[in-house]
């Protein structure tokens, strides 16, 4: 039986309403929102407005206009880092960050931005003491992944937000793995910026993401262009969301995301989180019982993502065999997060990552564990 355990990359299968919404846009709406006054364009606008409202609600933002659509978390991260940081600025980031953060930072470092890494424990938890010491007045930004995409470690977001507020340094949260799973109160915590993708725990299609920028933070956009607003002016509008939303938006993506978030709200985020984390705990306890398997457990779990290795076996080989022999989809390697793997001690080969979703069940997990037991037994 085919088993999909790669929800940390892309959640699958999507709720039926998501698929139907994308289909409806392509078959029944077909217009560019804000680029016409006909009924089709009006429906498109309504879809976008409703999705924006839902997106704002799910990350704890009261003004939906502050929530803009991007193509994914990576785009939102690039907007913030490249817009906010200037040569000579100092930025702190954790040792569990994804390449979507690390690579833009590396580029900025070559242009004179001072980038400093805050270490994490071997299980992936941020060292708050070091962060507190390093947070000085001249620090322009702190970047933090909310939940690790490698082992599901939950970062102490509230504590970090408090430290940043005290230091008056904006906190930029990468919520790619947490949005839709973890309750986020961006305004209440005083978070400066937040980026996430729509195709993971928010259950939308690929190609849509969310970016929130606090009103007092002047982050210039990465691209300018047509917005369907103030077209007589040659300068990019300064107001949100138009400031960041140039070009025809991804309406099928927004429509799908709207239904994904609606599904989470109807089902209950706690229920989804408890289900996925419950499966992860079951996976970890089963993996611990298999000799020759090492599990990289977080101190506090924020998602259902589990990382492990079979000793003396390249994770890519383990993943290949799970796929070819058992039709089980997992992800192997560095998961685009080499820093996190250095922190966990799994660089350069990485790990096998298993990430159940809300559609996964205990039977799927048993099947996966039995497949892995077969592999370990055949290695002798």
């Amino acid at each position, binding site marked *: 039986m085919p088993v999909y355990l790669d929800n940390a990359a892309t959640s699958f299968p999507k709720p039926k309403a998501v698929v139907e919404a994308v289909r409806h846009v392509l078959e029944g709406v077909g217009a560019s929102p804000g680029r016409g006054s006909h009924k089709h364009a009006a429906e498109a606008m309504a879809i976008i407005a409703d999705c924006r409202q839902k997106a704002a609600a799910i990350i704890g933002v009261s003004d939906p206009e502050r929530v803009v659509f991007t193509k994914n978390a990576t785009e939102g991260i690039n907007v913030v880092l490249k817009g906010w940081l200037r040569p000579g600025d100092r930025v702190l980031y954790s040792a569990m960050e994804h390449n979507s953060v690390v690579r833009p930072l590396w580029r900025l470092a070559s242009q004179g931005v001072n980038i400093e890494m805050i270490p994490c424990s071997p299980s992936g938890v941020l060292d708050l003491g070091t962060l507190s010491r390093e947070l000085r007045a001249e620090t322009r930004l702190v970047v933090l992944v909310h939940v690790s995409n490698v082992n599901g470690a939950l970062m102490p977001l509230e504590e970090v937000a408090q430290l940043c507020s005290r230091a008056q340094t904006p906190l930029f949260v990468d919520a790619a793995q947490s949005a839709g799973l973890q309750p986020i109160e961006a305004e209440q915590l005083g978070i400066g910026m937040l980026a996430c993708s729509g195709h993971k725990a928010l259950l939308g299609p690929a190609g849509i993401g969310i970016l929130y920028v606090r009103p007092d933070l002047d982050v210039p956009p990465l691209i300018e262009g047509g917005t369907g607003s103030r077209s007589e002016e040659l300068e990019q509008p300064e107001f949100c969301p138009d400031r960041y939303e140039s070009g025809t938006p991804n309406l099928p993506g927004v429509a799908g995301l709207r239904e994904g978030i609606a599904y989470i709200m109807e089902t209950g985020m706690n229920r989804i989180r408890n289900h996925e984390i419950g499966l992860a705990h079951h996976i970890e306890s089963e993996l611990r019982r298999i000799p020759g398997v090492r599990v990289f457990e977080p101190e506090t779990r924020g998602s259902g993502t589990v990382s492990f290795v079979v000793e003396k076996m*390249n994770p890519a080989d383990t993943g*290949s065999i799970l796929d070819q*022999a058992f039709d089980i989809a997992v992800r192997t390697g560095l998961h685009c997060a080499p820093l996190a793997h250095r922190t966990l001690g799994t660089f*350069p080969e*990485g790990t096998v990552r298993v990430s159940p979703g809300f559609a996964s069940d205990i039977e799927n997990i048993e099947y996966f564990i039995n497949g892995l037991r077969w592999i370990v037994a055949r290695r002798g």
Partner: protein
Amino acid sequence: MNSAEESENLVTENLASARVRIYDRAGKKVEQPQWIVREKPVTLYLNGKEVVTLLCAGHHLDELAAGFLYAEGFLRSPEDILGMETDNEEGTVKVSARADDTITERLWQKRTISSGCAKGSLFYYSLDALLSKPVKSDVRIAPGQILDRLEDLNRLSEAYRRTHGVHNTALADADRIILFRDDIGRHNAVDMIVGHVFLHGIPLADKMLITTGRLTSELLIKAAKVNLPILISRNTATSLAIELAVSLGVTLIGFARAGKFTVYSGQERIDAGIPG
């Protein structure tokens, strides 16, 4: 029949004779008989299903089949074999076995898939990745012993001397050659040796394999599957073989001839007796 006669019979059984014409540059022709090596297709069946057809010299088919099926992961222990019928005339070996061949079959000759997101695997077949493990052995061999066993191998090679058409392979310990096999394919000769040690439960941690063939990745992977610590050839090694040897802890020795040899990896097993 004495052992010399037995040996002669074995050699001649596996060889054929052909009437050939030998020309020189001036066109002068001499007609004479010449020994040639036999080549025949042999098809392996496992539990009624065709697995593979091997082109081989046609002898030691039981060892060839057992070695092949073991190295490819279809068999795990000699007790798995419930029966084996070899038919030299038909060119078939039919093995019935207690084997979890369904899952192994799914993996058979499947390439490993690398995402490019990390340091990838050295293995190109999934079954090889599954069954190859780093070799564990504390054996030490002196250079003289390596060269002596190579000379022993050359002495044993009657079919090669007559035909120049086979690869020779021997399993040896420091003091003597334990088993000798030859075949038209270097893999077949190695599979026969693997099959023999598999069927007879011979431990390999203190042994070396000497071959006349090139040292390629397939040979390294086979060594790692059976915990064979030292591979020696009078020929060269390939790049992937050397990478695998380093990764799997195999001592890899090439160009073993004329009183010298080249060590590509695992030199700690060479007991030179000279400090440094």
